[in-house]
């Protein structure tokens, strides 16, 4: 199960950062996930919940922000994809862009190089600390 090992990595990183900053509780964990990564946000959130039981992160809100794919084309275009067009041409009609066969350049229509959209970034955490005073 792919998501479990990723959740382990996220949990370890979050706990290390929280500890470093003297957290008594982790309130939010915000993630950025590329829409081409083979990761399911709901499963990841579930795994994180299981892992964080009885830790200072057990009540944390797990927020996932999606990053759209970005392209670079030989015609010179760099930018995001035309999702509607890709879905029209994809025989699976899937919401999962990772399953679209080809990422066309929205300008010239040729298959373009994928330059972004596979990320999985722990963007930030919100923590509570003891009042110093």
């Amino acid at each position, binding site marked *: 199960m*792919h998501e479990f090992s990723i959740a382990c990595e996220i949990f370890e990183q979050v706990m290390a950062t929280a500890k470093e900053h003297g957290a008594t509780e982790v309130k939010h964990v915000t993630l950025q996930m590329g829409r081409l990564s083979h990761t399911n946000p709901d499963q990841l959130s579930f795994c994180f919940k299981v892992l964080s039981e009885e830790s200072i992160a057990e009540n944390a809100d797990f927020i996932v922000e999606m990053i759209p794919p970005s392209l670079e084309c030989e015609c010179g275009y760099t930018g995001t994809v035309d999702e509607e067009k890709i879905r029209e041409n994809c025989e699976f009609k899937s919401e999962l862009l990772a399953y679209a066969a080809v990422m066309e350049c929205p300008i010239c229509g040729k298959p373009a190089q994928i330059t972004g959209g596979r990320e999985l970034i722990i963007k930030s*955490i919100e923590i509570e600390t003891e009042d110093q005073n």
Partner: protein
Amino acid sequence: MLMHVIDMGHDVYKANDKVAEKNKKKLDKYQVFSVNVMGAIGSGKTTLIEEVIRQLKDKYRIAVIAGDVIAEMDSSRFRKLDVPTIPVNTGKECHLDAKLVEKALDEVDLNNTDLLLIENVGNLICPVDFKLGEHLRVVIVSVTEGDDIILKHPMIFKTSDLAVINKVDIAHAVDVDAEKMRDDILSLNPNVPVILTSKHDWESLETWISFIELELKNLRIDK
């Protein structure tokens, strides 16, 4: 109580990529050519690796990292061919990652290895996101998986350096058009070399083995 927002910017996949880069540097230092062999369960990864070992082991010093969820059946098949084999049981995981390979590399005698064959866990999805530090990424697909399998798993074909369509001798029996499979691969990745193989067709195996040997030689020339 005080609330703080702490920016982390830690990319989980990039963290794996960094370890993979470290693995690759280590392999380069010892001039070891490494191949990541990916493909579904039953696609013929172990069989095709065995053929490479049989034909090249007298010319090159070969080692194998055999990834499997739990059993050691594959590694015992490689050991029978008298090559050093490191089994990596991923336990709960569906893919090898760079850290697992980093650990396995500690057990490989890199000074005495020319070719490192890494058999990934049987899966067409998860290995895509995890680089290992390999020089060559190979995906093996068999006709028994059906000729729509390629478009169902585009990312692995887009990110591979070589695609092998295996068991083509039984394509007719399973009502599959191997040429359609080849066309599908090329529609996803127009420049990828595609080889059709069958364990009963020596010529096709020779093409597969020669490809690996040529890439190995090319790496040495580049160095």
